[in-house]
């Protein structure tokens, strides 16, 4: 015992030294080194790695190191790094408002460089300006355009003898067909908080925003409420789909990962998800599987159907970054035709800025058509007044599905959250 104590102490000291060294080498890289530091969401690893490789080829003298982290971790780490002056040079910024790493939140702290003078700024469409600008100035370079719809396996849809639904009644009929074949139409992983919102957003795009595109602005101004709007019908329809047996059993106990596997394994025809989930479904279902996507109808007038689609991945340039010139070059590359093309193709998304050379994933045809016809509405939370509204929405949906709250109570809780500063 005695002999092992100094050994243990030595180990502990060595461990501590190694730990400190690890931290220091990282900081040294950020400080005096000649490496451009980038931080991105781990869901963007594949496209970002490809973009960095292309950037390095074009600029062999600039070294780039990218750190990836999951959403929660990335948001909390970035905030700490920004306020302590150790943040990377280029980093993920969520468009609009509504989450702790969002443009409007970070811009308030003065941490983002003004990118209005860059050539890409003038190419951003009017629809995307509301989530990439603050007071008329552009602070982020938008990279991907992402949609929320029913992503499905074409073979499974054929197996149940169905076609893409165009109306609400079509959806309900398709649910019955799926059930008759021992499947469900839509896998639902509501155990994972952020998944809870997706069906609501898909339905609300038509029920709420097709009629009143300014609902979010009115909500922020205190002129509209969730309870007094078509959000009530939206949530009711969400529950109606559940009653009609459209979703997997026990959605509150099912995770995002399980819902994706259910589609890949043919237990469910599809899943209402963001288009960035397509690569994961494809990976699990195999390269041969043919995937498709449709906007979830919520009325019986097919012309009214809208799809939530918005700028998703976007990057900001650190206003106090150590490598301003290199950072500028990298941001310009992200905005370039080549950068946008690589990013969108590798990530199965669409580029935000106009791009002729881009070849879309065939699964995205549904989204591209809606985008061309101007039938997209931004992600709702990007324009909600504070991050608590979205979090309250997650909780409310879980409570609705466990039967512990009514639609009216759910909407009231969201209204209460929206009133908070």
């Amino acid at each position: 015992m005695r002999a092992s104590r100094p050994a243990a102490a030595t180990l502990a000291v060595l461990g501590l030294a190694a730990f400190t060294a690890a931290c220091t080498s990282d900081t040294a890289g950020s400080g005096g080194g000649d490496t451009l530091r980038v931080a991105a969401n781990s869901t963007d690893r594949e496209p970002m790695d490809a973009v960095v490789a292309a950037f390095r080829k074009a600029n062999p003298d600039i070294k780039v190191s990218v750190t990836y982290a999951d959403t929660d971790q990335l948001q909390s780490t970035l905030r700490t790094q920004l306020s302590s002056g150790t943040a990377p040079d280029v980093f993920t910024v969520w468009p609009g408002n509504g989450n702790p790493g969002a443009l409007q939140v970070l811009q308030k702290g003065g941490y983002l460089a003004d990118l209005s003078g860059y050539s890409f700024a003038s190419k951003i469409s009017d629809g995307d300006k509301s989530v990439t600008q603050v007071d008329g100035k552009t602070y982020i370079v938008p990279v991907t355009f992402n949609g929320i719809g029913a992503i499905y396996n074409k073979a499974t849809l054929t197996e149940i003898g169905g076609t893409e639904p165009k109306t609400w009644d079509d959806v309900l009929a398709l649910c019955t067909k799926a059930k008759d074949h021992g499947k469900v139409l839509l896998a639902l992983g509501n155990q994972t908080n952020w998944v809870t919102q997706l069906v609501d957003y898909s339905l609300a795009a038509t029920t709420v925003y097709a009629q009143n595109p300014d609902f979010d602005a009115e909500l922020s101004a205190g002129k509209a409420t969730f309870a007094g709007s078509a959000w009530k019908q939206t949530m009711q329809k969400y529950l109606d789909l559940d009653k009609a047996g459209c979703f997997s059993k026990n959605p509150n106990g099912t995770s995002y990962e399980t819902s994706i596997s259910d589609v890949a394994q043919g237990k469910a025809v599809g899943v209402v998800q963001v288009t960035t989930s397509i690569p994961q479904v494809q990976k699990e279902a195999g390269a041969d599987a043919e995937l498709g996507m449709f906007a979830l109808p919520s009325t019986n007038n097919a012309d009214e159907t809208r799809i939530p689609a918005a700028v998703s991945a976007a990057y900001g340039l650190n206003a106090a970054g150590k490598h301003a010139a290199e950072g500028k070059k990298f941001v310009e590359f992200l905005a370039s035709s080549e950068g946008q093309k690589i990013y969108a193709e590798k990530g199965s998304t669409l580029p935000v800025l106009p791009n002729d050379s881009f070849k879309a994933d065939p699964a995205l045809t549904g989204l591209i058509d809606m985008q061309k016809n101007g039938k997209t509405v931004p992600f709702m939370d990007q324009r909600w007044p504070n991050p608590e509204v979205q979090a309250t929405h997650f909780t409310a949906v879980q409570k609705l599905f466990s039967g512990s709250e009514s639609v009216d109570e759910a909407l009231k809780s969201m209204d209460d959250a929206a009133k908070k500063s």
Partner: protein
Amino acid sequence: MATVATSSFQKHRDGPPDKPPAPHTGKRRLSRQRAPWWFVLPALAFFAFVVLVPSAQGGWWAFTDWDGISPVKHFVGLDQFRTLWHDQAARDAVGTTLLAALSITIVQNAIGLLLALGVNAHLKSRNILRVLFFAPAVITPVVTAYLWKYLYAPEGAINALLKTVGLGFLRQDWLGDPDVALWSVVAVVVWQFAGYSMVIFLAGLQSIPQEIYEAAAVDGAGPVRRFWSVIRPMLAPAITINLMLSIIGGLKLFDQVWVMTQGGPGGATDTLSTVIYKQAFQFNKYGYSIAMGLVLTLFVIVVSGLQYGYLSRQEKKNS
């Protein structure tokens, strides 16, 4: 478990159990070599630098409206604490936290004690069993929580097993049903740390001198009587430390909840720690979240202080 425990007593009566270490000699050697108090200084300095100073600095922010990112923060006095008083989500979380901490403390220690009594017996496999029971405690809670999340899935291993053995009616939506989710989380914590409690109880059991068991047996005390009147009082220090550790761990419960349910469904498993995390990192309310953190700290100090006072009085009474 009960049978194993009883058999250990019987074996003690019939023949010599494990040769216990010689506690008296150990004690004397220890007291003779008591280290000077200033040996603690390097560790204390490091602890102060890493934990105490930042905590004290951060504590002050509970009296501001800091959002965690902007350079400005305003002094708001006790406003955050006033808001906290009326916050229904925080109140619910206090209830959930207490319920979880209390049930973890009771069940984990009961199982830990039974396991310790069992593996203290003359079983051939006792060393393997000790390792097996303790093994989960060395794995990071985050990892075990991920594993259990898969086991608990509606189509997961647990429900499949129940169906196979004909207990299909017991199948549950383990993490998705708000009435069941908290208990599912508690079960994982107990599963992971019962072995940890066992090790502490085992150390206590092995320090009880063999002569005392024998004297009790000669006096005609049965297994229950021997446990209550001999083992329990002599285990008092182990009981104190185990109860303290599990109640503090329970009050701070975060990792397992965050991985398995993120506080859901619908806030049913939100503990004080998950609410604090959400306020700081999801709602940008650092000041408010720190105020909650301070309240949690006081809460842990008071609860564990009361518990410690009671248990040490019991220890004194018994000695």
